[in-house]
């Protein structure tokens, strides 16, 4: 029999726990195995939210998560009355959103099972939002289950995490990711191997890279940047290229979608009606949506720059591997010669400094620093011998 847990890659250790919890939840008795609040942590791309959604499906599915029934399907697509999936694409989850969510969470389960709330970005809760949520987790409804996802346990308020059971996901192995790409997404083995390797266990990123020619080509451009830092002018040029490429990648997705969303909302308030314009409140709702879209696009650009910086970091990582005499575990095998010649021309301590500089730039970006200035500063550091 198929199971929703089949789609989780390299997470056998938590599947066992989750299956036990599902079984315990069916008995109707209180047990150690089932509890009302869980935190899923793991590096980006390890499948935190996939694991949480799969657990949600298993809890509400009559067959313990078959993945094929109506309940399983609707749970995944926001269509199930008892499953709430909170997914923000913006910068943060605000307290108003949490309060609104709490009014919905108070409903009794409509099918007599569980009411499941999956919060995919618990690390993006603002402080007041987290405190509003805390109240609900402290005094849980009898049939409500909270599934929070965050990169690490430290991203969740201590008062919240102390009330949750913790599940740590592993970064899936190179083979596991490659196999998923080949078997699930029908990607050619050569491409699957490349994508899995350069995306370092991030399944979503690997797939995106494998199926998008334009993404691969901009990655290629970005990977050449460390080799083009001959002068200060070149460093500034490289920073500009990086930001432009990342912004273009983010906007390609968002522009079209933003426009469609606004159109749909305006229509729902009756834009285009004759004899009378949009209904009262329509303009305000559109304005709010546009604000949300702006926050989302800031986040997408930021995420995309962050991805590019991680890619560049793999260049220096490989260089360091070569410098320390370990040439087998290279990520960017297609750039072997260039990396080897760079490694030969540069001392290993500077390589470490450069990796540190990249990580520092990423942290600054997450703290809302101006993307271009941050990248310029970084490139200047990388340009040093």
């Amino acid at each position, binding site marked *: 029999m198929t199971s929703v847990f089949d789609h989780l890659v390299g997470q056998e250790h938590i599947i066992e726990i989750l299956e036990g919890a599902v079984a315990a939840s069916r008995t109707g008795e209180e047990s150690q195995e089932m509890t009302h609040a869980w935190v899923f942590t793991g590096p980006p791309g390890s499948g935190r939210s996939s694991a949480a959604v799969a657990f949600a499906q298993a809890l509400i599915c009559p067959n313990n998560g078959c993945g094929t029934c109506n309940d399983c399907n609707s749970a995944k697509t926001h269509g199930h009355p008892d499953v709430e999936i909170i997914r923000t694409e913006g910068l943060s989850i605000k307290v108003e959103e949490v309060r609104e969510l709490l*009014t919905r*969470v108070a409903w009794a389960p409509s099918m*007599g099972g569980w009411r499941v709330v999956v919060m995919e970005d618990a690390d993006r809760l603002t402080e007041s939002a987290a405190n509003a949520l805390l*109240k609900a987790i402290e005094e849980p409804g009898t049939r409500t289950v909270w599934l929070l996802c965050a990169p690490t346990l430290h991203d969740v308020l201590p008062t919240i995490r102390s009330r949750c059971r913790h599940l740590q996901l592993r970064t899936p192995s190179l083979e596991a990711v490659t196999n998923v790409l080949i078997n699930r997404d029908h990607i050619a083995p050569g491409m699957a191997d490349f994508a899995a390797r350069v995306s370092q266990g991030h399944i979503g990123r690997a797939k995106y890279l494998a199926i998008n020619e334009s993404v691969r080509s901009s990655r290629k451009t970005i990977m050449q940047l460390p080799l083009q830092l001959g002068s200060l002018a070149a460093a500034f040029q490289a920073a500009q290229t990086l930001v432009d490429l990342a912004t273009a990648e983010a906007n390609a997705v968002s522009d079209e979608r933003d426009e469609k969303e606004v159109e749909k909302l305006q*229509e*729902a308030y009756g834009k285009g009606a*004759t004899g*009378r314009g949009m209904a009262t*409140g329509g303009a305000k709702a559109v304005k709010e949506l546009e604000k949300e879209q702006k926050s989302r696009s800031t986040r997408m650009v930021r995420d995309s720059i962050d991805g590019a910086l991680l890619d560049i970091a793999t260049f220096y990582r490989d260089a360091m591997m070569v410098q320390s005499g370990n040439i087998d575990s290279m990520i960017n095998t297609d750039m072997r010669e260039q990396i080897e010649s760079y490694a030969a021309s540069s001392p290993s301590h500077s390589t470490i400094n450069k990796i540190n500089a990249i990580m520092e730039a990423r942290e600054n970006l997450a703290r809302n620093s101006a993307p271009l200035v941050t990248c310029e500063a970084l490139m200047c550091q990388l340009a040093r011998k």
Partner: protein
Amino acid sequence: MKFTVDQNSLTDGVNWVSRSLSTRPIKTELLGIKIDATGDEVILSGSDLETSSKAYFKADILEKGAVLVPGKLLAEISRSLPNKPISITLDGTRVLVTSGSAKFTLPTLSLNEYPNLPELPETTGTVASDTFATAVAQVAIAAGRDDSLPTLTGVHVEINEETITLAATDRYRLAVREFSWNPATPGFSTSALMRARTLADAAKSLVGSKNVSLSFAPTTSNDRLAGFSGDGKTMTSRMLDGTFPPYRHLLPTDSVTTAVVEVAPFLDSVRRVALVTDKTVPLRLEFKDGGVSLEAGAGEEAQATETIDVLLNGEPISIAFNPVFLADGLQAVGTPFVQISFTGSNKPAILTGRTEPNGASIENYRYLLMPMRYAS
């Protein structure tokens, strides 16, 4: 789709289903009102997933069909139309609304994405609409408004054969009302928790019908849905999860002092005296044989005092209440006189109604009010 209908039926129906439209829905389709003219009558429906409303009315249906239109706009238009027959026609992807010389066209929304709304559960009994509306309003006033304590935003509905008991509390006051109804099957009993504002809104809007039919699934059922219906109007609402706190033992059975006061002057006086303080600052009351004196504010701050007549039975007593909660209770008893029963200055007091100052108190509604501490 094409039909004509009189203005009243349409506006009434649209207003009813508009109540279920949310302002910030999860899906934009939920901002729409569905007009279904596929059968013998026209059915309007609206939903925010918690409550779903439908309105049925007779119309002269010339062409069958169904369509989803922007709900708020339809409501605003139907209200502004003159009292003349209205014709509604689907023309391609637009809906024409004409009445006399007024003409509107509305865009349509995709009906495919619109969720299937739940069916009205089987009727479990009926009650006179005004009794129901009064009872719900009397109780809903005491419900909490803090959505992070969802259980307390609800009204607890307990059905025991021929009696329905409603109760709500926000931890500072508790309102309990009993009334009789006509169950469809003898020996029926169940309980449910319904969001207070939903219940109050539904009850108030159904007073146009003589009777209201209630549908409460038995507690053992998987379907945690309640239904309310009157003439041509139905609404289903999801119940709240959680256990309502046991409250019966909180209601004191005996008292050391009872005071009877005329509601209107007392209420005015409470509001006047409370003017000098914040909403949460105690209003001090001193019940004596000569009258009850009200006092608020202290020391250097603004102060106010006032004395009004009281019929006192028992020991004199000093007590302090939140002025807003006291005013709510005085209004909710709904009688010319109020009886306040005390068991002590730091114990809860109970408000009940009296039609005559010397008559018996009406025990079917009790409003329990917690006293506040104050420094004297």
